[in-house]
């Protein structure tokens, strides 16, 4: 690797970085209560990234020997030279780079858990979900439960002296549930869980109880949720939704590469780059952060793929957009220092600016205290449909488990109320922040080729005042 990097430098590159990455994953899938497939994937290879004449190039391959690596370096340099007609003047900042190891040792390695035990766990979880739906007079009409166990090992060196070795295990679960009633039709739900951990992370999810609870809730929504008329209401957003809001409406707008236009044709840009875009969007009680260093988190890393140390970043501080997420090239372009946001999904894709674990910092209200202050409103605890425009300005969340709030008390379920609102209006409506922080796992999509990177999204429940809500369809 080092010799390939040096070969790139000898060919005139002003910066070179080499990475070897191995991602070994095992997947167990249960579909409609039967084992579907068990799978193993091993993706391992080298990549080189070089800067020459202000042009950036990336080359990757697998099964390479020393000569193949030198050839990879030559290809990267040639690609950079070929880009010179549209030279961008890219450079790296002068951030300190690490010489470090980051090895997260699992308490229970994945290999210690028999594949049959994994399958049995998912089958039991399915059965508990089916029983819960049946107990409510409904049927679990479809269930797809997929458990992934991934270990990522990276070695990175760069020509600025950075050296990193990391090994991080990650467990993830994705489920899609459909609960059906002949009289009322179907409701559906995606469930995601994830952690940087060994098997102990899976155990901590208590999957059997969790799937039973999900199915029971879906059955309640199906049986009990009533229509909701459109109108302005106070709204309490639960951790699952405010976490997604933090990710979509604080995290993505704060990615410096979007602000610089690098994602303009794919994931888009950010309203923060527009003339007159508001910096202050909320009350002083509002803080949104992104923190890769949270122990056990799905988005956990201590050093990024450019060998820069990770740290907590305040995206919204005291109600104002504050720090952007940077890699070394975006930082150099904007005259600041990287804050360790450079991540790549596997060896075959370039590192780009990414979030890690994005959440609203807790305040001091209990959920009951948040509800107490609402005369006529909605508590939106989960969602199904959502999207947001490519400037991260106009967004929509359609509720799944949604409770009417009447005089501070939960007063029955509502069917699919929709919150469709601009980012400044959403944040400025927040008047109280809860204290009980919860996280959800997700894979955040960005880049070309698409990279679905592990993240947590989270927050405590928060209360919004007098927001316009769309009614049930």
């Amino acid at each position, binding site marked *: 690797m080092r010799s390939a990097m040096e070969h790139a430098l000898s060919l005139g590159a002003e910066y070179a970085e080499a990475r070897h990455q191995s991602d070994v994953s095992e997947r167990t899938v249960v*579909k*409609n209560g039967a084992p579907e*497939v*068990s*799978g*193993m*994937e*091993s993706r*391992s*290879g080298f990549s080189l990234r070089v800067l020459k004449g202000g*042009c*950036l190039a*990336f*080359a*990757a*391959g*697998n*099964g390479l020997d020393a000569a193949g690596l030198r050839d990879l370096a030559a290809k990267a340099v040639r*690609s950079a030279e070929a*880009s010179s*007609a*549209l*030279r*961008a*003047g890219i450079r790296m900042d002068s951030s300190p780079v690490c010489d470090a190891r980051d090895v997260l040792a699992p308490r229970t390695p994945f290999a210690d858990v028999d594949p*049959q035990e994994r*399958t049995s766990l998912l089958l039991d979880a399915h059965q508990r979900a089916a029983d819960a739906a049946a107990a409510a007079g409904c049927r679990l009409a*479809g269930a797809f439960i997929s458990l992934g166990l991934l270990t990522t090992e990276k070695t990175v060196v760069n020509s600025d002296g950075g050296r990193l070795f990391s090994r991080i295990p990650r467990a993830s679960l994705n489920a*899609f549930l*459909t609960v*059906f009633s002949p009289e009322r*039709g*179907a409701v*559906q739900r995606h469930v995601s869980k994830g952690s940087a951990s060994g098997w102990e992370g899976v155990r901590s999810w208590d999957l059997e109880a969790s799937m039973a609870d999900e199915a029971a809730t879906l059955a309640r929504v199906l049986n009990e949720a009533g229509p909701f008329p459109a109108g302005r209401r106070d709204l309490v957003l639960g951790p699952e939704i405010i976490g997604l809001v933090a990710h979509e409406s604080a995290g993505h707008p704060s990615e410096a590469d979007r602000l610089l*236009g*690098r994602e*303009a*044709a*794919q994931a*888009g840009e950010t309203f923060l780059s527009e003339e007159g875009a508001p910096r202050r969007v909320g009350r002083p009680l509002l803080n949104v952060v992104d923190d890769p260093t949270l122990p056990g988190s799905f988005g956990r890393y201590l050093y990024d793929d450019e060998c820069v140390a990770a740290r907590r970043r305040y995206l919204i501080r005291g109600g104002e957009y504050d720090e952007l997420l940077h890699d070394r090239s975006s930082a150099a372009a904007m005259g600041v220092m990287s804050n360790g946001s450079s991540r790549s999904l596997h060896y*075959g894709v*370039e590192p780009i600016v990414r979030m890690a674990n994005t959440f609203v910092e807790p305040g001091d209200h209990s959920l009951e205290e948040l509800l107490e202050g609402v005369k006529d409103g909605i508590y939106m605890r989960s969602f*199904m*449909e*959502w*999207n947001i*425009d*490519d400037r991260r300005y*106009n967004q929509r969340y359609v509720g799944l488990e949604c409770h009417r709030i009447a005089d501070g008390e939960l007063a029955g379920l509502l069917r*699919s109320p*929709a919150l*469709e*609102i*601009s980012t400044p*209006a959403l944040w400025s409506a927040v008047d109280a922040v809860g204290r009980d922080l919860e996280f959800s796992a997700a894979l955040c999509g960005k880049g*070309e*080729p*698409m990279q679905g990177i592990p993240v947590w999204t989270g927050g405590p429940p928060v209360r919004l005042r007098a927001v*316009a809500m*769309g009614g049930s369809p």
Partner: protein
Amino acid sequence: MSLAHDVLETLQRLDVENGVVSAARERELLLRFSNDRMTVADTVEATTLSVFVREGGRKAAITLGETDLSKLEAAVETMVAGLRRHGGGASVPLPKGPFRYAAPAEDPAVDVEEMASMAAAAVEAARSAGAARSAGSFKASVTSLSLCSTAGAEGEALLPEAELSLRSFSPDGSSGHGLAVATDPRRIDAAATGREAGGLARMSMGAAEAKGGRQDAVLLPMVFADLAAEAGSMASAFYVDMGMSFLKGRKGEEVASPLLQLSDDPTIPGCIGTRPFDDEGLPTRRNEIIADGVLSGYLHNSETAQARGAASTANAGLVAPRPFNLTVGGGKGGWEDLAAEMDRGLVVTNAWYLRYQNHAAGEFSVIPRDAVFVVENGELVGAAKGLRISDTLPSLLSSIEALGGDRRWVRWWEVDVPTLSPSVWVRDVSFTRSTM
């Protein structure tokens, strides 16, 4: 073929009931640019070997970025041993070969200097057409695929793809998207793609915040291809079984306007979705999905087919059947001709971020992005922004008023199944927007 064959011999030595081995060698060049400048040039070359085994009522798969045969054999032996520890039931047999396949596609030459020059031409053309700046990607890849199975399938394919995707911005932030796909990057008209993006950006300058509500819309190919690809993917029997399809239980019923014809046809020569065989080695064929608005049937692999007493449609996916190369039947005229027939409505040139509230009902929303034009009395009278299509697939597909003759291939960030789509005039589309 030798690597795949060598691993197949391991499966045969282990007396595996049903096994498929495929080896793929992919080389890809990708140029990304923004603000009219190159942001990165990517080169990736990788070999991947995949093995799938179905035996004793269980299925297992491994995918390895590995060419060392001894390591591959060890991985296969571990997989088969694991499968046999817990199996017990019967498995569906793989399609029995040997088969005859269409001749492999030609291998296009891919050159980074030539592609960089074409990207520069696209950017310049966009600027000449009125763009203040452009961003995008130009990629070309070739996958050499070898496949063999314990049931006697044995085939080789070359799968070339090229895609130029370019988004241009006017000084006020309005935007337009140009897209071209081909099997050979040299067949892409880079300047025309740039002119399209730049022209749409210029035409949509001064876009005004629009009101929500139901109104007619002409959905250009990038938009309707998104919907057609959703419908095509939901025809997979796997997703039907999962409750993730509005087509469940609708075979033989009207699910769309009689004007709609939707097929999957990977046998059309020279498309980026053309392929001679599916993932089980069965020769591909044209399958009608929706004919005259009626659901013809579902897409199957051998396993989903047997579960329904049907035959495979050669759409394997070893786990989930899938479409490879979708086509929507066309009509007459271009989008301007369709718009000229509308009293009042919108022209939506692009959309992204499609998400479902309920897959079984097809309830979803998707966000128009780039140029949206306002039509009054058949004339374009301005541009609009800030809207969202919040509707259902059954409703939109049933409300088709007319289809254009301007079919083009679409595959980009939002639409991952290559889809040939025209512009489509749809009645009473539900648009919503943020009201605060």
